[in-house]
């Protein structure tokens, strides 16, 4: 029985998703939309958590992977879309999500390679640079609509697609991290050199983290594109990457549950602040500063022993 525990959990999650989607029409569309954004943000933040939180590679280019996934999938569905048949739509969309993820993963590999030589701030600025390069290239590609954006993407994303992906990402990341295999990620994050001396290839770990993280960012981008139905390069600037990084940091790097909570919180917070319209980004930025000063390890992370904090402090 235990052998299939993960599988069962996944199926349960997807069945629940379907059940809820039956009542989709009962949910206020605004809440529904916020829920979808929550789901997409959980996928983005959890996949970045794999790179930043578990493999310890500080990346500021996640929006770039998202863009690759979004555009790839949009091209696929615009070529394959059969509005008449829902079966074919499902097939086309599955393919689009998968291809979006795969192409993003290939870009993840390209970005992962420099990460092998770079650390900390240098890596951060390089990944930011890669994200921006991707955006600029898209902006110059006419067949993707350039700056005018890609219009007419079919609205295929729904509750089931998003939350099945959420379930898969969370399960996958937690399975990985709680396995003996996954300990190599944490070892590289904690002390790269010590990890190397027990035979762990930091190269391999970093590349796997970037490729997997990018894959899911790509899928999230594809889900996003087929929800908003219109994408343009400006949506995937480094500011989007910052947003995702902030979710990971506030949730607590390397905390699966904390990052989920912060993705939820940071999606809802701007909505709650709608009433203060022009002030909301100012409030948001102040909150960010205050949280960093008072709860630097993240809002949802248990406090560690004093000694450990000291050790972690000296790490980076």
């Amino acid at each position: 029985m235990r052998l299939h525990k993960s599988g069962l959990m996944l199926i349960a999650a997807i069945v629940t998703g379907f059940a809820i989607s039956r009542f989709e029409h009962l949910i206020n569309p605004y809440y529904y939309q916020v829920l979808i954004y929550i789901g997409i943000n959980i996928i983005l933040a959890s996949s970045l958590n794999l790179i930043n939180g578990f493999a310890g590679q500080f990346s500021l280019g996640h929006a770039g992977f998202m863009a690759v996934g979004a555009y790839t999938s949009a091209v696929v569905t615009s070529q394959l879309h059969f509005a008449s048949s829902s079966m074919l739509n499902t097939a086309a969309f599955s393919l689009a999500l998968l291809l979006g993820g795969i192409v993003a993963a290939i870009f993840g590999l390209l970005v992962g390679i420099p990460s092998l030589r770079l650390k900390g701030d240098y890596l951060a600025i390089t990944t930011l640079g890669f994200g921006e390069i991707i955006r600029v290239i898209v902006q110059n590609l006419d067949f993707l609509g350039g700056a005018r954006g890609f219009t007419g993407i079919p609205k295929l994303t729904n509750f089931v697609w998003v939350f099945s992906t959420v379930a898969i990402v969370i399960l996958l990341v937690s399975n990985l991290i709680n396995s003996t295999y996954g300990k190599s990620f944490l070892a590289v994050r904690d002390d790269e050199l010590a990890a190397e001396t027990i035979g762990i290839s930091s190269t391999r770990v970093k590349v796997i983290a970037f490729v997997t993280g990018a894959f899911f960012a790509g899928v999230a981008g594809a889900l996003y594109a087929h929800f908003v139905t219109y994408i343009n390069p400006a949506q995937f600037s480094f500011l989007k990457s910052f947003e995702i990084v902030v979710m990971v940091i506030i949730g607590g790097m390397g905390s699966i549950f904390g990052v989920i909570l912060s993705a939820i919180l940071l999606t809802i917070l701007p909505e709650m602040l709608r009433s203060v319209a022009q002030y909301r980004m100012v409030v948001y930025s102040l909150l960010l500063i205050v949280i960093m000063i008072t709860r630097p390890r993240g809002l949802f992370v248990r406090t560690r022993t004093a000694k450990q904090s000291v050790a972690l402090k000296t790490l980076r």
Partner: protein
Amino acid sequence: MDLLTLRSCTMRFGGLTAIADLSIGLAAGDLLGLIGPNGAGKTTIFNMITGIYRPSSGQVLFDGHSIVGLKPNQIADRGIARTFQNIRLFPSMTVYETVQAAYSKGVKYGLIHAVSRCGPFHTSEEETDRAIAELLEYFELETVRNEIAISLPYGQQRKVELLRALATKPKLLLLDEPAAGMNPSEKVALMGLIERVRSDFRVSILLIDHDMRVVMGICKRLVVLDYGVKIAEGSPREIQCDSKVIEAYLGEPTE
């Protein structure tokens, strides 16, 4: 044939020569002590062997093959494990997880199995779990298995680090001042443990210490280093009488 051979190795940093024309041989099953005053270049030798530094010139042979230019993890794969002078444990991990990390390389499944938890995953995890439990028992660490490793007392941290190195199933173990910071009775106990480990795990050991008396008891052969140059080699008794060694250590506090 020797398990590890350093053949006229030289290590230069800019204009500074840290190791000069050093040759050392270590036979399988040996416990070789590498001693010398602070700053003699002992840790540099370890860094050279484990691939952290690449020797400026000379050869490092392990099991008859050159390991110069290999990455630290590749050298670890060949069967060399080490500890660090200033203990480097993984700050976020428990004792159990620390040992698990050392096993992460040898699991009998891949990424896909890890994330999907199928195939050989559960069998392999159970095997690993049993092996770790045995090791923890051997080192008398089973009571602290779920403690964060770096929150343990110093002596136990040393043990965890030694255990982490052994968990990679090395042929050669490099111990960098394992007794540093211990009181005399702890030192004696540790030396006993090292000797037992050597025979129980059939591992060769290269041990660094600047305190001669620590290693006298267990090493059959010693190499003495001063300013990157080998000044003497032989049995503990021979070393004790060597005039160059006495000169090098004169005025050195020997704890």
